[in-house]
């Protein structure tokens, strides 16, 4: 498995389900001019990149534009990709930048992602209920996807983007900080808030005894 050389303490806790072994071979072929190799990469990642841009922009049209621009930019700049990170991480960086531009354009009042925010002290969650071993299996896949999209969409963009990169796209804390221009402590603080808020939102769907 192709893995980046990062401090293991700051890598994602779960093994990557995204990047496959042949990614670097495909990238090398695409860099050598093999269009089909690039198309294979697009086919592989288009759904993930669209979910990423949609989760950030919360707008279908902007998400489509951001995704399309990300793949076109990736193709244009493929020669400059040095292979110091995973191709997927590089692609995510491009897509995030495109999506954030759309978000800021549509919502000019939005605070900058690197702005200091008042996070307050972490408080002990009040709703502590057992979800059982596999709460997600109470829902059909499409229902679950709707639930997850809904609860992420309800998050403040400041938290949503960090959670998206760190826990869905499996970027490390440092990579997330670099992509968003944040400090590592700022990423950690936002990630904790995002995880706690999402846990609270999902509690409504997953606590034991709730009808599915």
């Amino acid at each position: 498995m192709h893995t980046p050389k990062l401090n293991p303490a700051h890598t994602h806790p779960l093994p990557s389900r995204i990047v496959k072994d042949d990614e670097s071979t495909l990238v090398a072929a695409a860099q050598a001019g093999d269009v089909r190799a690039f198309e294979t990469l697009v086919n592989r990642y288009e759904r993930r990149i669209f979910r990423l841009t949609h989760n950030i922009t919360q707008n279908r049209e902007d998400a489509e534009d951001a995704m399309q621009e990300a793949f076109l930019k990736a193709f244009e700049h493929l020669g400059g990709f040095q292979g110091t990170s995973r191709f997927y991480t590089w692609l995510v960086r491009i897509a995030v930048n495109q999506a954030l531009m759309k978000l800021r354009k549509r919502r000019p009042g939005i605070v900058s992602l690197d702005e200091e925010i008042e996070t307050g002290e972490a408080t002990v969650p009040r709703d502590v209920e057992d979800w059982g071993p596999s709460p997600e299996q109470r829902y059909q896949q499409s229902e679950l996807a709707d639930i997850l999209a809904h609860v992420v969409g309800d998050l403040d963009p400041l938290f949503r983007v960090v959670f998206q990169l760190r826990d869905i796209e499996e970027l490390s804390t440092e990579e997330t900080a670099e992509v968003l221009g944040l400090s590592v402590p700022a990423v950690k603080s936002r990630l904790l808030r995002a995880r706690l808020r999402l846990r609270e939102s999902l509690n409504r769907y997953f606590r034991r005894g709730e009808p599915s």
Partner: protein
Amino acid sequence: MKCKSIVIELADYLDGALDSSLRASIEQHLEKCSDCRLVVDTTKKTIQIFCNSEPAPLPADIRQRLHDALEKRLGGAGT
């Protein structure tokens, strides 16, 4: 260790980013505190559910436009 400290350290604990002594203190607390255990378990589950979720198929119209745009650009690359 108090419940509030568990929450503060929660993200690093779940990411395996704590030193062994702090981790041991947290696990000692979790053995005795069922509320914190549930918070840790459900937060871990939250991450797993998102991490394991497969993205929905790309809507056909969006996919078509993406590949049309790529074909136009990649075709122009002379291959």
